[in-house]
């Protein structure tokens, strides 16, 4: 008999607590302010986000540089950590802004809420719980990304929200111009005219197969990815296989972890040149080993495309200097001077 009392009491206690939780109603709904004009966009997660415009206080856990590019850096009140390359081209006032999140994985909710933003930009690392907390507090959250296929859509959306559609289109057109340029020039190449490429990133023999953004870059630049058909998206290739494929080109992506100065690039390249498995490959013999930084390969895709295309088909791209284009792009859209090494040789 006493057993049942204990179990029953436990159940009753649980029910009481649950009931209390609902009645105390700990959610704090925000008062609705007088209606402003709203713009509704669809973000990468398929959510219809309603943003009241004009937006005055933005927290950019991603796309900080895009907002600056669109001319609205004064609206940013909080940011995430930025890479050195991005910090270099942004106005110094951005660097003074509080860092409210290392990345979308770990936002500091208290700081974010205290800044009272009216728009928060995040990428897919944000947990649904954190998104809910912000949305319950009345803050619109846009979860998107700067890679294709969302890049153009997202930038257009931002332009719409900030009332900077012209600038947004200017930037998109600029990027498209170069993408189309490369596309047209390699359009009529036959397979035999396209070099085979071994692409490596992150660590030795780590490559990328079809379906990855790296593969798409290689193909769009008129190359053939020797790892295209691998079953795993980011395969670790066997050295024998690469040796056997005898690639015409070896492209190695570097990140800030590898070092940012010229010496670092040279070190990476030298290491590949000295690998026994690759010593007999065409790429090494002809010195066609190139190191390119992720900043241009991924973040500033058109520039990366130009670098690759020029390496693969020098005769078709004699008139293009990717470094110069890069410099010009940064000057035109960020008003800053480009510094640093992004590709070698």
């Amino acid at each position, binding site marked *: 008999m006493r057993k049942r009392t*204990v179990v029953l009491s436990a159940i009753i206690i649980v029910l009481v*607590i*649950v009931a209390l939780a609902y009645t105390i109603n700990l959610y*704090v709904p925000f008062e609705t302010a007088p209606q402003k004009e709203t713009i509704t966009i669809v973000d990468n997660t398929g959510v219809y986000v309603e943003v009241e415009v004009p937006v005055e206080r933005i927290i950019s856990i991603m796309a900080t540089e895009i907002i600056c590019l669109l001319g609205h850096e004064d609206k940013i009140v909080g940011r995430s950590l930025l890479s050195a390359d991005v910090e270099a081209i942004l106005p110094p006032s951005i660097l003074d802004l509080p860092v409210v999140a290392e990345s979308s994985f770990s936002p500091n909710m208290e700081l974010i809420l205290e800044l009272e933003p009216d728009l928060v930009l995040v990428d897919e690392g944000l947990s649904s719980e954190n998104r809910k907390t912000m949305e319950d507090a009345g803050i619109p959250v846009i979860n998107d990304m700067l890679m294709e296929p969302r890049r153009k859509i997202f930038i257009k959306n931002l332009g719409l929200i900030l009332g900077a559609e012209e600038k947004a289109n200017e930037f998109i057109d600029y990027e498209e111009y170069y993408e189309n340029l490369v596309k047209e020039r390699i359009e009529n190449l036959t397979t035999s005219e396209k070099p085979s490429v071994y692409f490596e990133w992150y660590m030795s023999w780590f490559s990328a197969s079809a379906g990855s953004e790296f593969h798409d870059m290689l193909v769009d630049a008129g190359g053939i990815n020797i790892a295209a058909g691998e079953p795993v998206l980011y395969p670790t290739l066997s050295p024998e296989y690469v040796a056997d494929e005898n690639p015409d080109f070896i492209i190695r992506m570097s990140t800030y972890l590898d070092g940012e100065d010229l010496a670092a690039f040279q070190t990476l390249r030298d290491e590949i040149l000295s690998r026994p498995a690759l010593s007999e490959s065409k790429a090494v013999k002809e010195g066609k080993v190139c190191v390119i930084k992720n900043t241009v390969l991924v973040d500033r895709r058109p520039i990366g495309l130009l670098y690759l295309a020029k390496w693969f088909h020098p005769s078709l791209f004699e008139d293009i200097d990717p470094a110069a284009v890069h410099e010009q792009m940064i000057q035109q859209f960020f008003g800053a001077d480009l510094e640093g090494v992004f590709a070698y040789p």
Partner: protein
Amino acid sequence: MNTTEVKRLYTEAKARKVLAILSIFVVLLIAVVISISLGAGSPRFAEAMQVIFSKLFPFLEIDPGSKITQVIILDIRLPRIVLAIMAGAGLAVSGATLQGVLRNPLVSPFILGISSAAGFGAALAIALGVGILMPFKGYLEVFNAFIFSVIAVFMVYGIARIRGITPESVILAGVAINYIFSAMLALIQYIAPEHTAVRAVVYWLLGRLSNANWETILLILPIVLVATVLMMRHSWDMNVMSLGEEVAISLGVNSRRVLAICMALGALATASIISFTGVIGFICLVSPHIARMMIGSDHRFLLPCSIVLGALLLLCSDTFARLVIMPSEIPVGILTSLIGVPFFVYLLLSRRRLFWH
């Protein structure tokens, strides 16, 4: 010593134990007050108390402060504190229970392989978008993690049964299941279609309380509460079982059945917690140990003591984790692992009888 003195011995010992538990509880309350007064945002003690009292006693008409303050206190700090207490308590009592029924002060619920299984389930959801059940949107990894934990426990039970449910067979089966799921987890990370997914899985495994909200708590609370109550009901059985299986039977305790039931309860409580928080280790190991040092091995007191100790430990760890490198946070799972290191060194060096002989 005459009989009155002998009897008083027990009564006094019991009073001391109860006092110890109450003291820790008081420290816990103090920790709660401190935790709610600290954070990256600006609300401090005064503002926090204002908000809480205005909600608890609406008739007193206390000014609760700005909306932001209320949200920070009630929707960010308070759920996190409650989750820390609940998770710490649940993990600790599961650890104490498993140590009791497996007759081994070095085990924890994770010996059943549920941490790898939960990680595997979460990875399946995060990296491949594959799920088993999805009753609520956005909770795919939580339910996956939970279901695979349950599967792991069934597998352990099934394997252990072959030779009979004894501590040895359960532990061995658990080790095997642990390796199976670890391997599968590694495989998923290798074939994951996005490299952010891999990072997300690693992040999930680290264990953090930063995603606490009231919905989470209401989902976990009933399970942990009921499991805890049921585990505590077996306190006497655990006491008797430490004398060995044969003596236990002679005293009327079906030790194999108790082992199976308590194993399931401990795994259930642990799984429901780590499905939300990721793997937070060492609380389930360290709390029962310290509790045993303070209060002895009578499980009627050991379990409640572990509960308050676990809650206190996790709350302090989490508060420290979110304050030490503001505005960034250290995932609390890393911090609790760091606690484990000096603790086990101490165990190694200590020769005191207060542990097993």
